[in-house]
């Protein structure tokens, strides 16, 4: 999907100006929103994002029609002296996903973030709408930039736009979370820049296409690859570098959480993909790719177990993001496991991309649903959610659909992604990733079942709703979840159709049931309170030894997570990962 040939010698292609527009539109809107002020900022967003959607579609159409990468040379100067913007299949998919998710987030937040009719302008709405546009502009720059330094600047813009979203409410915990996020992200980006220096010093260019032709596994390049990759992992919050993610989500508004989890962490993930697949496929070794996959597996296990032990819905969803980020890194060992086997390479990349799109849509929908429940109840303690399903059926439906989509039930994008990655695992003989892929779905089912059982429980007495939720917000969440669940149909174009079978076919139904059942067992064992008891029972007496030991394991995971998220541990871990990855790039069997 990504490896479209690049024209040499490179010139601006037809339709290249669309790429410039895709950068100018969001950034010009940021300025418009800033100057026109809070009341108009929302109008600017509502005009700009649909226009951006049309633009992304136009870029996609142009790409498909011309059949090669779209290029725009800034000022007509060709790299290495000039800077190129490029759009390939990867970029277009990400552009479209970003715009669709942002549109849904804007609709979701439409009534939450408005300036009071006759009041003074307030900070939160003004900043929210402006930052939403800034995130959009930074992401477009990440997807379209053609050289590693522009990517660095774009990534920094993304961080600067994402950090204030965490502390929109201005309470001291949220400020602290934002500062932690910013400092850790800066540590990551400075490592990335160090890597960029080494690459420039070796080859005299940072242009991706030129570097791809020149890189050889020499020491400076290997050091650069290790530094840049780990720096980006810190920004992506891959376990064990996720110290900033749970506190950042704990206090952020739901719309901001949706943007952070669905889009902002994907920016740096996308850059890892660019590095590994486009810049240095010749440097990457299979054992280094196995390391990324192993970190992903650890993220799935720890993130899911800790998610099951959370008392607050918002944090449960945040920890599920930690686990899902791990899922995104499983494509690396599959793609680089069997060098020379091009089909497996492509299938794993397509699978990973589908995974990202389906996670972006489903997780945004899930955060929105959790936010609506919080807004309506005034709290989101999982133990007190009984009766929510009756009071807010649309919201609960959105949550359930998002959960199904994340589990990878049949026609969801995650299902198709899993299928492609399972094929890649079979093709390259790496059976252990099959276990991880299937086990990850069971874990996901675990926390979805946990929440659904809580909200479906009936409540004696009436439901104390603090505040009615807007129907538009509910529909935005539902729309995103549904689109994630139906993604497989949209993806059928580039993917062979025989991969999708009917959701009611006995084999698929059996897998789905097994996953849900496994998840229910996990939830039963690991949840903090007993799943079906109405009241927290004085448990020690009537619980078996099995449950007690499983609970102890869960508590141990929680403790380990708390330890790993301490600053010293995480930053030393970061440096050790650089060393480990560098070692694997040197000593792993050459690719």
């Amino acid at each position: 999907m990504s490896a479209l040939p690049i024209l040499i010698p490179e010139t601006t292609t037809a339709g290249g100006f669309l790429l410039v527009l895709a950068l100018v539109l969001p950034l010009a809107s940021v300025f418009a929103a800033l100057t026109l002020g809070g009341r108009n900022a929302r109008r600017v967003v509502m005009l700009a994002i649909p226009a951006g959607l049309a633009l992304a579609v136009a870029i996609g159409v142009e790409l498909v029609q011309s059949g090669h990468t779209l290029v725009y040379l800034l000022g007509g100067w060709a790299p290495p002296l000039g800077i190129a913007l490029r759009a390939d299949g990867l970029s277009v998919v990400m552009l479209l996903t970003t715009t669709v998710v942002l549109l849904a987030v804007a609709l979701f937040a439409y009534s939450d973030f408005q300036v009071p009719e006759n009041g003074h302008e307030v900070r939160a709405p003004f900043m929210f709408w402006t930052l939403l546009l800034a995130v959009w502009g930074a992401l477009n720059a990440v997807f379209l930039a053609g050289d590693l330094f522009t990517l660095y600047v774009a990534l920094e813009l993304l961080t600067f736009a994402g950090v204030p979203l965490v502390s929109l409410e201005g309470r001291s915990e949220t400020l602290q979370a934002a500062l932690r996020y910013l400092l850790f992200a800066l540590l990551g980006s400075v490592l990335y820049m160090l890597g960029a220096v080494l690459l420039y010093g070796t080859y005299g260019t940072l242009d991706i296409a030129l570097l791809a032709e020149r890189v050889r596994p020499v020491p400076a390049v290997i050091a650069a690859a290790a530094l840049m990759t780990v720096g980006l992992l810190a920004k992506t919050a891959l376990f064990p570098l996720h110290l900033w993610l749970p506190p950042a989500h704990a206090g952020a508004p739901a719309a901001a959480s949706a943007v952070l989890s669905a889009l902002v962490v994907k920016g740096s993930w996308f850059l890892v993909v660019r590095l590994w697949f486009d810049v240095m496929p010749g440097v990457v070794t299979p054992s280094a790719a196995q390391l990324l996959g192993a970190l992903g597996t650890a993220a799935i296990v720890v993130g899911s177990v800790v998610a099951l032990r959370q008392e607050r819905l918002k944090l449960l969803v945040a920890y599920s993001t930690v686990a899902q980020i791990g899922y995104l890194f499983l494509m690396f060992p599959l793609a680089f496991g069997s060098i020379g086997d091009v089909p497996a390479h492509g299938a794993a990349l397509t699978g990973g991309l589908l995974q990202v799109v389906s996670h972006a849509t489903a997780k945004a929908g899930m955060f929105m649903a959790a936010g609506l429940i919080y807004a309506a109840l005034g709290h989101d303690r999982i133990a007190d959610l009984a009766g929510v399903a009756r009071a807010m059926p649309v919201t609960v439906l959105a949550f359930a659909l998002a959960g199904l989509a994340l589990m990878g039930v049949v026609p969801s994008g995650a299902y198709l992604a899993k299928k492609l990655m399972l094929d890649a695992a079979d093709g390259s003989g790496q059976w252990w990733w099959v276990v991880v892929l299937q086990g990850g779905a069971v874990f996901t089912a675990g926390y979805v079942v946990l929440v659904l059982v809580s909200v479906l429980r009936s409540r004696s007495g009436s439901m104390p709703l603090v505040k009615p939720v807007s129907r538009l917000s509910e529909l935005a969440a539902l729309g995103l979840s549904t689109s994630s669940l139906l993604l497989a149909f949209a993806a059928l174009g580039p993917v062979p159709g025989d991969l999708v079978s009917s959701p009611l076919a006995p084999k698929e139904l059996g897998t789905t049931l097994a996953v849900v059942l496994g998840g229910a067992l996990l939830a039963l064992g690991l949840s903090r309170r007993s799943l079906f008891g109405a009241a927290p029972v004085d448990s020690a007496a009537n619980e078996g030894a099995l449950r007690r030991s499983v609970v102890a394991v869960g508590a141990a995971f929680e403790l380990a997570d708390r330890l790993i998220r301490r600053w010293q541990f995480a930053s030393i871990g970061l440096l050790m990962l650089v060393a480990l990855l560098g070692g694997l790039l040197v000593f792993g069997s050459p690719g």
Partner: protein
Amino acid sequence: MNASMLYGMCGSALVGIGLYGLIVNPQPLRKILSFNLIGSGVFLLFGVIARRGAALGMGGDPVPQALVITGIVVAFSATALAVALLLRLQEASGSATLSSPEPADPPDA
């Protein structure tokens, strides 16, 4: 040892000192300063590379210099944002520390 070697070593030393400070200092302001130290080290390395380009017969490679200027702007903005957050944190909580990793519960409505 020639001049670019010396500059390269200085840059690496700055990166090392900055990393040490960023890891062990608990105060956020010192972490911000340490980040700036690492940044300076990286910029110095960029300078060395520009100089090395000059050794090939060119009059100094201008591209790394352009990159350094951009990098300094980015690092300056990052520092400004971090300091602004720190000041707000000090205002809101009376203390400026990062040492409560546990996500606190929101105030009950």
